[in-house]
């Protein structure tokens, strides 16, 4: 925050303000040298990038909320820097003050120096501890800064934007001094308290992102109507006749979303742990042992009428190398479906019906086809496009007819 003097604003008046604020900072640094713990590089680090969370974290480790330990020098200096930084920012942004800005900033800097001399750190520490124990995750504390700053700065601008020093103006400065330190402390306190929760929130959403990626990429592809159905099904607010609407391709999800968004309390949608397979065309390959020539493997058209897949997320996932699913023997997502399969069989009818089992994005079909020339009916095993590609990569000549078909497919 104290980089303000380095930022090279072209307006000279702004530079004057920054110089004054920088002077205030350097004064604080001078007095801070009396503290053994203070090191100038702390200011430098702070100036380059306000590592608010980091150094305040350290500061609070030195003065835990529950133990009556006094504030460290580092902490005092950190807060002082914060405060001056806030004032600097305030004046940097208040361009409408034009000529009066220098005057106000100078007076503010004077008052801050005066304040630094007599600030009652012990009371402030008690204040932090009280706030800490009363409402450790208090949202009000956080916003107090914004609303206090509003009222303070607006009054200040109104009362003190003349060159005449009035009693009102002096009182206002005193108010600023008292309130701002409180506000700053509350703000910092809030940040420190929030930080672990922020980290938790980031972790939580990292995990959710990985789960969504897995849901969309590591399983059998979902057509538009399947995504729509599953989106609707996952919406726990849909009940009664509306739930039936989920099974109407593409329409149900509209009902779902309109209903879901009515309440903010509904929060984030959970990442699904199951999905329906519904009217799903798939391309695959089937093995025809009755074929006279060498090409036993034939392209097939698989149509899945309805089915389901299930899985469980690994709740302890923290990084991409961790397993995203948590299933017995790692067999998930898995599922099954009712299918029809169509292929150009040599001695059996092209269309047959049966079932399929699914593992991730692989499918194995098992369909029964009637005999065409008086032989016996037969069950045939087939695989879907992903598995046939996996099996067909340079394995044997049987897969050659499929290669041209699958060019450019995933």
């Amino acid at each position: 925050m104290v980089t303000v003097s380095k930022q090279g604003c072209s307006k000279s008046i702004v530079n004057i303000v920054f110089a004054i604020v920088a002077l205030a900072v350097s004064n604080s640094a001078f007095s801070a040298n009396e503290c053994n713990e203070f090191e100038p590089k702390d200011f430098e680090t702070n100036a380059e990038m306000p590592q608010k969370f980091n150094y305040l974290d350290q500061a609070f480790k030195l003065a835990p909320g529950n133990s009556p330990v006094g504030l460290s020098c580092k902490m005092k200096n950190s807060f002082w820097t914060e405060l001056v930084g806030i004032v600097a920012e305030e004046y940097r942004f208040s361009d409408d003050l034009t000529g009066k800005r220098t005057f106000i900033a100078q007076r503010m800097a004077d008052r801050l120096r005066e304040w630094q001399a007599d600030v009652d750190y012990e009371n402030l520490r008690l204040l932090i501890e009280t706030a800490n124990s009363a409402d450790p995750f208090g949202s009000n504390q956080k916003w107090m800064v914004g609303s206090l700053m509003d009222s303070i700065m607006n009054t200040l601008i109104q009362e003190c934007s003349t060159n005449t020093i009035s009693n009102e103006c002096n009182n206002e400065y005193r108010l600023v001094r008292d309130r701002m330190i409180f506000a700053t402390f509350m703000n910092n306190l809030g940040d420190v308290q929030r930080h672990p929760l922020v980290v938790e929130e980031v972790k939580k959403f990292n995990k959710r992102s990985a789960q969504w990626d897995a849901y969309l990429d590591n399983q059998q592809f979902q057509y538009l109507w399947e995504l729509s159905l599953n989106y609707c099904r996952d919406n726990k607010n849909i009940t009664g006749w509306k739930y039936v609407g989920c099974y109407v391709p593409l329409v149900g999800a509209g009902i779902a979303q309109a209903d879901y968004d009515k309440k903010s309390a509904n929060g984030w949608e959970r990442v699904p742990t199951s999905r329906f397979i519904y009217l799903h065309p798939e391309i695959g390959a089937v093995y025809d042992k009755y074929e006279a020539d060498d090409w036993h493997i034939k392209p097939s058209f698989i149509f899945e009428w309805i089915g389901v897949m299930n899985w469980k997320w690994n709740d302890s996932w923290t990084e991409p190398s961790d397993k995203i699913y948590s299933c017995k023997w790692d067999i998930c997502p898995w599922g099954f479906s009712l299918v029809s399969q169509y292929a150009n069989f040599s001695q059996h009818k092209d269309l047959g019906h049966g079932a399929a089992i699914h593992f991730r994005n692989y499918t194995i079909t098992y369909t029964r086809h009637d005999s065409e020339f008086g032989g016996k009916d037969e069950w045939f095993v087939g695989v879907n496009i992903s598995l046939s590609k996996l099996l067909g990569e340079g394995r044997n000549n049987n897969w050659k007819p499929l290669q041209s078909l699958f060019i450019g497919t995933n």
Partner: protein
Amino acid sequence: MAQVIFFLHGAGKHEEGWHKDALESFIETRLLLGRDDDFNARYIPIALSYGDIFEEYWGEHNSRAKALANLPIPGNANSFIRKIIDFAKSNPSDDHPWIATQGDVVLYLITSLGPAVRNRVWDDIIKVLEEHNTPMFSIIAHSLGTRVIHDVLQRSFTGDVGSNYELFGKPKVLAQIANITRLTSFNEGHLGPGMVVHPSYDPDTGACWRYINAWHPLDPSAVIRRFNPLRYPAFQGVQGLFDISAKPGDVINIKEIHSLTNYLKIPEITAAIVNGLENYTTLHPGPIDEAAIEQAREKYEQKTIAGSWTERLEQIEQFDLNSIDSWLDIIGVIDKW
């Protein structure tokens, strides 16, 4: 403390660094409005992107359709199977305009890709805020992005005291450019009493400090079922709402009328955003006043279509060709000739 500005795109393909033109536009207009300080010292612009989720989906979808269409099915195949194959053959390619625009909107609205997109956007926002250690952020969203961020803020609502959402606070500015939130709503239900995405200076309500709703009267996406904030009780009588309509002539290239770049060239819109970004206190009006906007508009209009037509009109006036008599004279001359 530098402030993060998130840019959120609309439908269609968006490569990495997609926001550069829009950002350039924003910086230029800001300069035109008299803000000549170092932009980079004050702001950290971040481009958010969710388009790859749709692109990957359409890529997979199209390759499946292609394989299905190539499937060697005999002519006497079952009619139902034949219909599916024919349907696959008629599948639009991934550069088809429908796929590039409405396709994404449909996927977002009615499929599980919607929650995945919302999750991605919020995940990216909190990662950036964590990385930069700053609670100060603003969002400039465009087209489908307006709907996405509306839904994200509805879910990450920060004003609900006592809830677990109180982590990062509200964005200072939520600029909804070519807002399609209402256009993409199935009914008014989710814009009703439960909607929290409105501006508020009250700590406990609202999902942003300043809400800018910018639209162009010739931009169909922004005008059809226009999101008029004042329709909704949550927006009535609140401070921090700026509903800004561009002038019909506010366009430099008519093909780009819907683009974020075009919108951010309009002085009133950028001024409202900058004022929101730079008023450190929420009640403060911001540094750009009406006079500065007027000045910027004069310069801006020289570049617009309307501006060039005005220039032509002035030329006509100069040659006194605006009276009917002058034209009759010309027609008379042509007729004689």
